[in-house]
């Protein structure tokens, strides 16, 4: 079963994403702040990470950068959740390496489609 890590300080959002992804057959792990998220990402080596931008301690952009510049983790697809706030605008000038951006409020079905797109592609890549 594919492993997905969901990192967001909003428990409700984590809950709903987890519910939809698990009912669609994915194995979900969750973290509620950036620090735990980064630690879990390195321990679990998930197949995909869903990452919120604005979080206490370490923000999503930073986590994304740290993972994408590390050969060990750089192939993990990252879906970034953004609220398009001005604090985020200030950060966005920097390279983040995220594969997709999802703007709040998002559509769960669309997130599901994106997850499928990345995880199926990876399957194709492995089988080739």
């Amino acid at each position: 079963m594919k492993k997905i890590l969901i990192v967001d300080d909003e428990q409700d959002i984590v809950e709903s994403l987890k519910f939809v992804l698990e009912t669609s057959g994915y194995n979900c792990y969750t973290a509620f702040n950036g620090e735990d998220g980064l630690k879990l990402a390195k321990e679990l080596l998930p197949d995909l990470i869903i990452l919120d931008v604005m979080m206490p301690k370490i923000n999503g952009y930073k986590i994304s950068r740290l993972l994408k510049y590390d050969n060990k983790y750089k192939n993990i697809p990252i879906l970034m959740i953004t609220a398009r706030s001005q604090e985020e605008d200030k950060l966005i000038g920097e390279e983040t390496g995220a594969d997709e951006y999802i703007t709040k409020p998002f559509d769960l079905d669309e997130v599901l489609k994106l997850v499928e797109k990345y995880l199926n592609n990876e399957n194709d890549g492995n089988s080739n």
Partner: protein
Amino acid sequence: MVKIFLVSDNQNIIERYSRICEQNSFNVGFSSDMAIIEEMIGAENFDLIIVDNGIKTLAPKNLITKIKSVSENTVIILLANNGEIDKSILKSTSAIITEDFDDNLISAAFNINLRMKNALTKLSDTNKDLADSLYRLNALYSTSSQFAGTLDKQKLIEFMIEGLDKSLSFALTCTLSFCTENEPVLILNSLYEISEELLDAIKLRTVLNYKSLFENSKNIPYTIDEKTLKVKKFVKYPANRFNFTLFQFDNMFSPIALGENFYGCIEIFKESHFSPEDAKCFQTIAQQVSLPLKSATLYQEIIETNKKLEKLEKLKSEFISIVSHELRTPLTSIKNSIDIILSGRCGQNSTSAEKFLSMAKQNVTRLSGIINDLLDISKIEAGKMDFHFNPVNIHSVIDYVKNALSGLAKEKSIEILTAGTKNLPEIMADAQRLEQVLTNLLSNAIKFTPEGRKITIRSELKNAADIIYNPCFSEVMAKLKGDYIVVSVEDEGIGIAEAGLLHVFDKFAQIENSLSRKVGGSGLGLPIAKQLLEAHNGAIWCESEIDKGSKFHFALPVEMSAVKGEAVSIS
């Protein structure tokens, strides 16, 4: 009375000249002693000095040199009898009288020389006055140029005192200033150190002077008290000390005010008397400083207002940011929960549950649209909206928006038609922003059109001169020059009254309109569209008739040079 001094040791001459002077009512004195003569010319101011060239008791040449060194303008007449005359003496004498002059001729010579002397004295006095006036004018001129060069109130007061010092050379000025600091302050500029007693006297006097200015008025600008008055002292020669009381000085006093604006008052002291010219000069400077003080006050107010505005602008940005982030996050949770239930993942829903959940979902979508609009308008207003200009085919923009909204139109059985010129040229634009504009116009049209009617999207190539518009848009439309692609969204909806046409592009205009409130929306869609089009050097306008429908048009310049082919930000 004319005073004449005769230097001679000849009794005949003394008698003769005494007689002539008496006839002319001149006062005459005489001597032949050098020491006495020296004392006399040092003490008295003689109009004429007659020197006998034949005198034995002293050398005429030395005497004349002496007289000239004491008073250069003294008229000297030489009595040239027998004997040689030193040529250097001739240079210093105004006239020579010889033995053969009769009494009348001598009187005439005296009178002519006296008249000449008077004329010379007058001339020299006038010259001195002129030089004084010139100096004062120079001081006034340089002071007024200094006034014009600054908006700093502290400096203006300093320049005023400096100007007074230059033109009037005061011993002491007491300036009571209300405009340079938060509290009234007494600025003392003094030649010498001021004793405690003198300082107390000055303070008391200043307060009394100030109060006397407002004797007949109920509104005193500031309440001051000599005991608590703040003093700033500037002493030019602190080694010396004033030992006088104020009564030994001459003084002048003036308020520093312009109309109702009162900035302070000034009193100036000098040991000698002030002339009427001094008074004029003092009044001029004290009045002159009031106008720049007023400008400086206004300038300061403007700066303070600007600071407040900047702070407000920052608060607004922060507020928008909070709205954006703090509203989106809970909205996401609500939307996700509704979506999960609607998707049937938690089991089958009843028909009415589904109906109400759909209602909730629709309103979540609407709310997130409003948040997006708020964010957009704040970005545009802050000049932070980024545009990416690329060649754009307007037909693909129209097709994209038409398809995106076809579902919404279908719900109301509204037919969307396209019309106009095919194969319009590509233009430099930000395709995403154009889609945003057209989506807004089309969704508005759908909102306001009754079921079963038609909406037409027309696109044409037009010259600015051929565009017809309601006069209320003339300010916007007059800016258009050259060829434009004009896109129009024409509906058969409720229409807008003519008075409201221009205001539909104002922020939050919808909120005032009860009818549209029922239909919903942030009231920001059209103002955003307007700003986005202005960033393209384009324009938006509309025409409408109540109950017949509205036509919204926007124009985009065909000329590439109108917008640069790179990403630009608008401000």
